[in-house]
């Protein structure tokens, strides 16, 4: 049952660069599931943590530009796999769609004509609610039985203020169910939605490494073989300096960080090269148990 493509994909800057493994694995997985995916043309940066940090109107204008492209290119929905892009697009759309006066003002400043109707989708929401666990499970050719995973949602997947969330904000389960469909044992743990520090990783290193250490420590204590993420910033912060952070905070065991779509790809028999598993600093290997 092929779905009609009313949705465009918005890759975002990280998924074209440091988190290309997230993008490639997502494309591979959507292909394996026969979900049509088209990429938005001419998209620009969502502003990430920086635009809204200094100028709210700039944040709105940047996202209005991308929402206008979605509208002009004939899509009803846009899916941003990156949690930060998702949060920026979704929060801007929530405000712009619901407030004609604000929309007019930003349209005027940006010289654009956004009509206020685009729906922004989250990748976990789409996989869990649109594709569904049954269909995800059905495609599995290499079950990941025996693998214990801590699903880490971070901040930005479930915390768009004032907008209905597709999952529980404090203890979400969509990713747990997705990896469960692959044969993975999703663990109960306490840091699912705790912050990794985001850009404090570069600006206030000690604060960020303290936050990362708490996440790693609990995942280790629960016996996780890996931490599963759906955000390039979470992936970067938990992975790239993990060895230093573990040494500093006395955490014994290395814990690989994988994107949820990389795990799906593995269970679908896609190659490790295609999934770019070797991009991570902490090596992840699953030989089957």
């Amino acid at each position, binding site marked *: 049952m092929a779905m009609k493509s009313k949705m465009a994909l918005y890759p975002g800057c990280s998924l074209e660069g440091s988190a290309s493994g997230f993008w490639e694995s997502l494309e591979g997985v959507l292909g394996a599931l026969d979900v049509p995916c088209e990429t938005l043309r001419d998209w620009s940066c969502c502003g990430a943590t920086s635009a809204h940090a200094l100028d709210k109107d700039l944040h709105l204008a940047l996202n209005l530009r991308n929402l206008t492209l979605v509208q002009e290119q004939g899509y009803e929905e846009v899916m941003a796999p990156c949690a930060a892009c998702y*949060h920026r697009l979704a929060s801007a759309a929530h405000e712009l769609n619901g407030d004609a006066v604000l929309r007019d003002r930003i349209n005027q400043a940006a010289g654009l004509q956004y009509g206020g109707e685009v729906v922004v989708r989250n990748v976990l929401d789409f996989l869990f609610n649109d594709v569904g666990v049954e269909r995800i499970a059905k495609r599995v050719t290499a079950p990941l039985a025996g693998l214990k995973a801590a699903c880490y949602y971070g901040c930005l997947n479930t915390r768009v203020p004032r907008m209905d969330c597709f999952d529980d904000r404090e203890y979400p389960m969509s990713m747990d169910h997705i990896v469960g469909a692959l044969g993975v044992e999703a663990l109960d743990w306490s840091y699912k939605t705790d912050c990794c520090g985001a850009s404090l990783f570069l600006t206030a290193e000690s604060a960020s490494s303290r936050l990362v250490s708490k996440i790693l420590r609990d995942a280790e204590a629960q016996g996780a073989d890996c931490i599963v993420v759906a955000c390039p910033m979470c992936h970067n912060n938990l992975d*790239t300096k993990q060895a230093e952070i573990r040494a500093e905070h006395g955490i014994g065991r290395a814990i690989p960080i994988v994107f949820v779509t990389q795990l799906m790809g593995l269970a679908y028999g896609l190659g490790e090269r295609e999934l770019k598993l070797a991009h991570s600093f902490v090596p992840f290997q699953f030989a089957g148990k």
Partner: protein
Amino acid sequence: MAVERNENPCLCYQCAKCSTGCPVSEEMDLLPHQIIHLLALGMEEKALRSKTIWMCAGCYTCAVRCPNDIDITSVMDDLRGKAAAAGVECPCPQVLKFHQNFIRDFARRGRVHEARMMGEYNMRIGKPFQNASLGPKMLLKGRLHLLPPKAIRGFKRWMKKLWR
């Protein structure tokens, strides 16, 4: 561009739920509920000089938990923007420089060139060798590109209308 505040600090009844759930409260000089209290009392200047607005990680925990529906994270954004625009001395210059540098980076082409963004940020904060081992390792793994992304036609000019 003009910054307006849409949040009403007078709705706050000082339950401090924002501060107890804040992951970076120990880095702050004033706690989030104290910032909101200052605003309710009309003492914005003190909030603008605080370290708090720069250490906020933007995690939105406070915003979604506030029983009075104050989007505290966005209040922090507004204060930060105001402090930067007014030239208030910044107690965490690295954070301000990071955001300014990041915006400057994607303003050129419409998309971030991660390698340049990180390199330039290090230069601007006078620590050229910060995380120096990370860059080459990421390059080797193919996670950073030396060449910039393709420029989006007309973006640079469009952006000039919005950001000085």
